[in-house]
């Protein structure tokens, strides 16, 4: 093949390749795959937050029609306790291994039956006695059990003299911000179908990375990874909640082994809440000092989050304090509080999403105190290099996002004084926030085969959890091979395709694209030889610069307009606009859908979402979609999102990830808009009716309507 590749697939808006399957109901998700001889598993979960199992009485259940058996800690297959994840051994994977109850919702038994109804009825007939021990789910920043968080993601910041700079500041704010425990709530409950054949484990599972799940399963069963085959062709959303090896596939594999049948385990919606993962609650203190002209002198971000002693975890709330603004003194302190709760996991924009709520709310408070436009405050404090590491930025188009977003939103016409706009009984306000999210690349393997018919088959264990990976990677492969997209066939979602990063950390598409581009380069060198089929495979592990000299971040600016009804406390988002700098955009239509979806999750976080635990039992009391509201159609306005021209120099194609940055920033923009509407700060999420009602002054201006 001669000449430069044809370009043009990347950058063009194209509908999803699998679209026709999804709109006709023919796309098969993990619980949809037909399977002869299938048995159904039903999970029994612990109802206490801490204790030990005294007795499990399965006798009634075992006598019920269709019941094949019950697995519990007394007889379940033994798992390798060393199996784990990124941080090392992970106790959350060790299901049915002992009598210890570390959190309410922990799976303690699995009933297997011929039908769903039989399994469910038998699960209800199992009697469990506990030795209940005192639990602690009372989370706060100064909890006595708190400890410094792991610094595996990077060191804490401690530049300059924060206290001296604060003392010398014209304005100092020192506030606490709180975000609740939240649930990823993908629409597809975690489901897996698993079976064993000749010492090999096969599973169709809902997850965000089939290869990593196969690695964990292989470790749990102490077998070669090549003997574990995990497929996840279509996944009904993840948002981080399916990033790890989930209980569904571990339990299905156990039962499949014991009963020598294919087993399907699907979590109920309640079990998704109590037994999968959560975004941990955060309690954050932000201190910012500024000169009268709006120059920041000090930023001190101290944040705590809850976790479980079962597994290490980092909710990196303080990262943006090291990236967004220049200041002579910056200090971050991240604290982990071990409690008797469900182990947390990354949820869309982990760290950055709750962290930016605190930091960007605090920046708004600084602007208020200075009598300065909050947009102007941000523009005055833009760094030329990363404020803490001192490294230059790879690409930093935040100013473009701020200015273009402000122009489109009509920000210049805004009166910065609060509680000045009314429409009938409604108070109107607008707010904004800036944000960043780290970008990068992880090792992956891609294979490309030039087929005899002139087409190319691309194989990579990418995961399409709604991101449009299949469609985006087809465009990347087409350009890399210099052919049209119609000549590309792509296979994803199969651990047999080789080692690959999952859909997480906003690094899926960059990691997979890199591998595809390298495989295409290698294949093109061999295409002069007419032999077909011919395959090239590339593993990018050795090609990645793990300590790049430049900070690689994506940026955005979010603008919101809200209406507040002081008589009901209802906040409605009327306008939401995001401008994003995320490198070169592969498919503008799908990319826009993804950042809009992220902003909607941020809206939902701002106004609706809260996992409420009863302190008496430690259990979540609102673990379904009636009690835990996620934004519905009627909550969501039309949303404007667009991209400023950007190119990531550290990526061979200029790409960066964009799956998570839409969520970060949105909650602060909305909270700041609610302040602008009402004159009262909302420092705890969600901005519930009662919090807004409380914030309405008793002496209402004439003509304002109040609830009786």
């Amino acid at each position, binding site marked *: 093949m001669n000449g430069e590749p044809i370009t043009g697939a990347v950058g063009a808006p194209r*509908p*999803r390749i699998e*679209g*026709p*399957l*999804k*709109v*006709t*109901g*023919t*796309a098969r*998700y993990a*619980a*949809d795959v*037909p399977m002869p001889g299938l048995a159904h598993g039903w999970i029994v979960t612990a109802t206490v937050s801490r204790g030990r199992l005294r007795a499990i009485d399965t006798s009634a259940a075992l006598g019920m*029609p269709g019941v094949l058996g019950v697995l519990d800690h007394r007889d379940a297959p033994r798992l390798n306790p060393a199996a784990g994840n990124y941080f090392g051994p992970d106790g959350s994977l060790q299901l049915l291994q002992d009598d210890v109850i570390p959190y309410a919702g922990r799976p303690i038994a699995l009933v297997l039956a011929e*039908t*769903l*109804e*039989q399994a469910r*009825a038998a699960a209800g007939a199992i009697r469990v006695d506990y030795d209940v021990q005192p639990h602690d789910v009372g989370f706060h920043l100064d909890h006595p059990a708190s400890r410094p968080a792991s610094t595996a993601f990077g060191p804490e910041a401690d530049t300059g003299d924060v206290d001296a700079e604060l003392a010398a500041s014209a304005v100092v704010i020192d506030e606490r911000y709180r975000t609740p425990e939240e649930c*990823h*709530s*993908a*629409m*597809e*409950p975690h489901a897996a179908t698993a079976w064993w054949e000749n010492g090999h484990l096969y599973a169709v599972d809902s997850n965000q990375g089939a290869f990593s799940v196969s690695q964990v399963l292989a470790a749990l069963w102490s077998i070669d990874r090549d003997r574990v085959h995990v497929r996840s062709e279509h*996944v*009904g*959303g993840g*948002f981080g909640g399916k990033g790890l090896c989930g209980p569904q596939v571990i339990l299905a594999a156990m039962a499949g082994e014991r009963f020598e049948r294919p087993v399907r385990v*699907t979590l*109920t*919606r309640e079990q998704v809440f109590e037994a999968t993962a959560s975004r941990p609650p955060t309690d954050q203190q932000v201190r910012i000092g500024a000169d009268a002209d709006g120059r920041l002198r000090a930023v001190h971000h101290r944040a705590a989050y809850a976790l479980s002693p079962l597994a290490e975890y980092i909710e990196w709330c303080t990262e943006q304090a090291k990236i967004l603004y220049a200041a002579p003194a910056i200090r971050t302190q991240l604290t982990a509080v071990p409690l008797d709760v469900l182990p947390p996991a990354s949820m869309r924009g982990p760290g950055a999403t709750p962290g930016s709520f605190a930091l960007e709310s605090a920046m708004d408070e600084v602007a208020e105190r200075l009598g300065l436009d909050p947009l102007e405050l941000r523009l005055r404090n833009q760094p030329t290099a990363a404020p803490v590491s001192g490294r230059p930025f790879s690409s930093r188009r935040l100013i473009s996002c701020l200015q273009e977003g402000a122009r489109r939103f009509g920000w210049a016409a805004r009166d910065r004084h609060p509680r000045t706009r009314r429409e009938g009984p409604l108070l109107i306000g607008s707010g904004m926030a800036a944000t960043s999210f780290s970008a990068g690349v992880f090792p992956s393997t891609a294979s490309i085969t030039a087929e005899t018919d002139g087409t190319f088959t691309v194989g990579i264990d990418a995961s399409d*959890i*709604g*991101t*449009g990976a299949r469609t985006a990677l087809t465009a990347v492969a087409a350009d890399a091979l210099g052919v049209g997209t119609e000549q590309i066939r792509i296979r994803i979602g199969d651990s047999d395709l080789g080692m690959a990063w999952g859909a997480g950390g906003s690094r899926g598409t960059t990691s997979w694209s890199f591998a595809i581009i390298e495989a295409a380069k290698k294949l093109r060198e061999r295409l002069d030889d007419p032999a077909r089929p011919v395959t090239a495979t590339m593993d990018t592990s050795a090609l990645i610069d793990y300590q790049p000299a430049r900070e690689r971040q994506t940026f955005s600016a979010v603008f919101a307009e809200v209406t507040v009804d002081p008589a009901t406390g209802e906040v409605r988002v009327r306008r939401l606009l995001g401008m994003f700098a995320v490198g070169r955009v592969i498919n503008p*239509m*799908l990319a826009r*859908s*993804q950042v*809009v*979806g*992220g*902003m*909607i*999750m941020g809206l939902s976080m701002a106004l609706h979402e809260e996992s409420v635990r009863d302190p008496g039992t430690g259990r979540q009391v609102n673990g*379904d*979609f*009636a009690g835990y509201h*996620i*934004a*519905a*159609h*009627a909550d*969501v*306005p*039309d*949303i404007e999102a667009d991209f400023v021209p950007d190119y990531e120099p550290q990526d061979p194609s200029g790409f960066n990830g964009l799956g998570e940055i839409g969520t970060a920033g949105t909650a602060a923009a909305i909270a700041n808009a609610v302040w602008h509407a009402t004159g009262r700060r909302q420092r705890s999420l969600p901005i519930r009716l009662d919090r807004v009602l409380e914030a309405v002054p008793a002496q209402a201006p004439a003509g304002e309507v109040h609830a009786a």
Partner: protein
Amino acid sequence: MTGTFSSAITLHVNGTDHELTVDNRRTLLDALRENLGRTGPKKGCDHGQCGACTVLLDGRRVVSCLTLAVAAEGAAVTTVEGIAGDGALGPIQQGFVRLDGFQCGYCTPGQICSAVGMLAEHAAGWPSAVTADVSPDGPAHELDTAEVRERMSGNLCRCGAYPSIVRAVLEAAAREEAAR
């Protein structure tokens, strides 16, 4: 065969009769998925709270997870698999693909069935909570974004495809209107 715990029924699904024996506890959703292999309708919550299982029962939308299979006998059941006609995508389905009205696709079968049912409800003059004038002799209410959002709010989408879904539904409605 009938007995204490099971019943022999006939389900009329997407134009075809199916005779089957079901556990009396079996929901229409599980009968469609487990007995008939119609896995288009999805189980998102099993509680009627998310709408992913929405199907049409004699043209009206129901959550099939809260409908017992034995209670659906005699009704015409339409699942998402029955929305397309003669192999071609229906107008709402086309709009979903072209305007990107979904991401993960899990809520999509319910959104599409709900949209079909909702457009019929609107055409029949049913008001919604945001309809300004609900008096019987009031003016025909136009289907705007507020009406679509209100009427589709029983169908949750965690990916946040709502704005595109609303556009796809309004576009399909306009096409239907023009074809009339």
